[in-house]
Each structure stands twice: as structure tokens, then as C-alpha cells.
């Protein structure tokens, strides 16, 4: 505190009511920017969303511990992109939402003029901004390692990254919006690790035993990896099944989340 306020420091009319909601676009952009900036400022989030994918990209390109089709970097980029999307949109989002609820942020914002759709929209847009930044950084790193994607492949990558962010984001909100912050933290990390190792990301579905492969292909992680592999490695359009799988997961999670998400 500074000095004691002199009495009558507020000129009459200072607080004359003039209520009303802000412009939707301004609310959306301010909220999204805040979300994105906070993610990038959080050390654990940067580790999860950027450093781990980057380490995997460089490490697995340079060290042949896992059998990969050649050129190694070309086959790694789709998986690392999928991991980056999953880390930010699912794990990062779930944990952030869990703790934001704990700290009363969601309730705080829900008490403003921010419409409910914007409350979600700002988080989604913030997530998309972070994913875009991640993919640019990872793409530049991959290019330095010798990756040279086709233009069509990059267009599909943008489409799949947006779809993947929305789907994984919905699953992240479903998890982070319903449970206690600590439970969210534990589950989001465990699920991330399981999907990374056994969900068709590091080991693609093709390389798994057939019985397991069919089940794994139904996971959003495998669908996103497959779609990106089609677009960037095989040079084709993503298989319809991958798009359908991602869409189904996202839609189901979003519908369920509207019922289960709590403000605190």
C-alpha cells in the first residue's frame, strides 16, 4: 500500500454505472492471447509441448534405437507433430483447466460478460496459437535435419493439426473440467505416456500385432499420426477413416463435456 488515501479522492461520477458486454472479437482475442502467453510462460508446459517433441525428433533422427523407414526424419515428423498436438491440446489443456478451476479462474471469467461459448473459444484459440508455434519450431528443426515436405502435404498438415487440436482439446476439457486438479494432473500425464508409447505414435499401428493394431487405430493418437503420415510421408490425402476417427472422438468428448464440466 502507498500512503493513506485522502478522503474524497474519487471525483463524483468516477464510478457512474455504464455496464455492458465488450466486443466479442476483442474478448476472444484477449482471452486467447492470455491463455497462449500463460502456456508459453509455464516451464513444465514448455517442456511437455516443445522440449520433449524436439528431443524425440533430434534424438530418434540421429540415434537408431528404433527401426524407422528411411529417411528417418521424414518418418518421424508426422509422429512428432502428432505428439506436439496431443501434448498441448490434451495434456496441457486438461492440466491447465484443472488448476484454473481450482484457482477460481473459470468462475471469475464466468462472472464477467464473457459468453459461455467464448469461455471455451478463447482456450481453443489459445491452444491453436501454441500448436502453430510448436509446429513451426519443430518444422524448422526438422528442415535443418533434412526434412523437405511437399506443399500439398503442408496444407493437409494444417487441416489435420486444427482437427487434431479440436479433438484432443475436447478430450482435454472433458478430463480437466470434471475431476480434481491433482487427479487431472496424474491422469493426463499417464494417458499422454500410454498414447505416446502404445497409442500409435512412436510405434505406428502397422508395426503392431494385427489384433492390437485394429484397436490402436481407433485411438485419436493413432488416427492423427496416420493422417499426418499419409500427408507428409506417403504423399497422399489422409485416409477418410483417420479424419472420421478424430472427428468422432472430438464430437463425443465435446458433447459429454458440456454435461460434466464444472466451473470450480
Amino acid at each position, binding site marked *: *500500500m*502507498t500512503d*493513506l*488515501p485522502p*478522503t474524497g*479522492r*474519487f471525483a*463524483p*461520477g*468516477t*464510478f*457512474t*454505472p*455504464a*455496464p*455492458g*458486454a*465488450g*466486443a466479442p472479437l*476483442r*474478448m476472444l482475442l*484477449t*482471452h486467447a492471447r*492470455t491463455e497462449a*502467453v*500463460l502456456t508459453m*510462460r*509455464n516451464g513444465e508446459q514448455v517442456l511437455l509441448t516443445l522440449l520433449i517433441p524436439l528431443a524425440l525428433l533430434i534424438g530418434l533422427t540421429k540415434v537408431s534405437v528404433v527401426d524407422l523407414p528411411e529417411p528417418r526424419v521424414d518418418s518421424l515428423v508426422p509422429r512428432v507433430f502428432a505428439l506436439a498436438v496431443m501434448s498441448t491440446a490434451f495434456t496441457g489443456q486438461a492440466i491447465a483447466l484443472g*488448476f*484454473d478451476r481450482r*484457482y*477460481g*479462474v473459470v*468462475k*471469475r*471469467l*464466468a*462472472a*464477467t*460478460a*464473457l*459468453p*459461455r461459448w467464448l469461455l471455451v473459444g478463447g482456450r481453443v484459440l489459445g491452444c491453436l496459437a501454441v500448436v502453430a508455434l510448436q509446429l513451426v519450431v519443430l518444422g524448422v528443426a526438422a528442415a535443418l535435419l533434412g526434412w523437405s515436405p511437399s506443399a500439398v502435404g503442408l496444407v493437409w498438415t494444417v487441416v489435420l493439426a486444427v482437427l487434431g487440436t479440436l479433438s484432443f482439446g475436447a478430450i482435454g476439457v472433458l478430463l480437466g473440467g470434471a475431476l480434481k486438479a491433482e487427479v487431472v494432473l496424474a491422469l493426463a500425464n499417464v494417458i499422454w505416456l500410454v498414447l505416446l508409447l502404445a497409442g500409435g505414435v512412436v510405434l505406428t499401428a502397422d508395426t503392431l500385432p494385427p489384433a492390437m493394431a485394429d484397436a490402436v487405430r481407433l485411438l485419436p493418437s493413432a488416427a492423427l499420426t496416420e493422417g499426418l503420415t499419409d500427408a507428409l510421408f506417403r504423399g497422399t490425402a489422409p485416409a477418410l477413416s483417420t479424419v472420421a476417427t478424430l472427428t468422432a472422438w472430438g464430437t463425443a468428448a465435446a458433447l459429454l463435456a458440456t454435461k460434466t464440466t464444472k*466451473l470450480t
Partner: protein
Amino acid sequence: MDARRGRDGAHVLGLTTVNTPAVEVSDLVKSYGSTTAVDGVGFEVTPGSVLALLGPNGAGKTTTVEICEGFLRPDSGAVRVLGLDPVADSARLRPRIGVMPQGGGAYPGVRAGEMLRLVAACAANPLDPAWLIDTLGLAGCARTPYKRLSGGQQQRLSLACALVGRPELLFLDEPTAGMDPQARRLVWELVAALRADGASVLLTTHLMEEAEALADHVVIIDGGRVVAEGSPAQLTEERPEAQALRFRARSGMDTGLLVAALPEGCLVTEPSPGGYLVTGTVDPQVVSTVTAWCAQQGVLAEELRVGRRSLEDVFLDLTGRELRS
């Protein structure tokens, strides 16, 4: 859409019918499992006035406020806030109110200035966030992450977030909890300025002093029920039968003669050595009798005063004197 905008415009110009209470609550009931948090609470906030919900911890204050804010649905009872249903009309109500929740309300890593600018962006005609940060003494920590602010600084930021949208009605849940005396005085001044400028305020507090200083109307609740209400003056108004005259003099005086001289119904006790208490209907005649008696005894009655109950006395009389968790 246009019609709605027109109506909101009318509010901005102050054309709302003066008769519509800012908050109107009746027979509110809310239970959590087998615990009844709010049990038939009712009150009204007159537009442009300050109402204090006063009660001990766990009295049901926060539950009542959260029902008014639309965060909780009552089990039964009626709530209208600015003439609207806080749950069903939430989207129309929220742009018009300012909310200061009890504790928390910011991203752990957000800087104080960022948080206030975010909330300001949600309002059509916000106050200047930089001015508000400065006014609330937060200029030195505008770039400090929320989790590293002191409790009092977090409270001031929370208050700034409630004010910034220039609302016509504010809900302040324990606005001065954790604040030092200077900050508390600043909050009191802010609330007085808001009221003077025509905003309505519903605040909760367990500080009698705060309710007495700020409120036009005080509603005392305990165990989820309203146990008393009125202006601070009405609540502390002297009840003739409960008046008391106190004075100090030599200890151990024989008060038999004094009792005999006083009107019937008056009692004289000496609760502490040399501290005398005369209870009953204390009128000027009684005061005169007491001083005359002291003169006869050859003692000077010191610190003689006729007691007016403080709001604290009223509060403690109503809610009990034992500490509760």
C-alpha cells in the same frame, strides 16, 4: 437483439424504474446433502444502496451471494437480480454486475495487470485498468505473477476486477478479508464512492465495524436464517429495558441505599472492582440519583456513561458468544 440492446441502453442512461429492487430474495433454501446452508433467507437491496450480509463463518453468506450471482440454483425460493433470473437470464445479467468472489479468481501465473486487462476487455465501457491498478496500490506489483502476490494484494486485484466493468450492481464477498487497515479504509472509500455514484452493492462481512461504516441496511444471518435486519441505527437502537449506566468509583461501596433511591426495577452490580453497572430504565432522573448518591458518599463518579449497544453487542447477542469453527 435490437430490443434488448435498447433496454440495456436505457439502464445505462439511468432510466430503470426506481422501484425495481437491485436484488430481491425471498424464502431462499439451499442444502448440501444433509446440511442446510441457507434456510429461508429473504431481503431486498434498494437501488443505489449498500446492503451488508453480516454473520459468523458458515452462516450461509457466500451461498446466498452465489445464488444471487447465478452460480448456484436454490432448492426453493425466489431470486430476482436487476429484475432478472440469475440462472435463466445469466447472459443478460452478467454484463451488468461486478463480482468479487471469496478468494482466488486468477490464473496462478498471470500478472496482476494482465488479469485486470482481460476482465476489462469483457466490458463495453471499462475503467482504465492502469488507473485502477494505481488507485488500488498495485502499481508496484502489476507485473508480479498472481501466486506471488500477498493475500491483501490478491484481494485488491479481485476488487479491481469487480469494479472495472462499471457495473450497476456489485457483489463483494468478504471484500476486506486479509487486508491491512489502510487497504481496508481504501475499500470502504471505494464502496462509499460507488454508492454515491449510483451503484448498488451487496457485500458480506463478519466485521461489525465494516457493516456499520458502509451499509444502509444490515441483514444479520446465522445458521442460514435472517436473525435481524435494519439500518445500523435501528439495530443498535436503545431498548429501554436493556439500557445500562456505567461508572467507576471506590470499590466495595454499599449500594443498598442507592438501590433504595432508584426507581423500581433498577439493579446495581459491581462486575469488576470499582466498576459499577446500573441496569434498568435509565432516564435523566436515574443519572441524577446516581451522581447525588456518589456525592453523599464523597466519591467522584468517573467514566460515567449511559451505554448504547454497539452493533457488535447486537451481533453477539443474536449469534451467541461462543467461538464457532
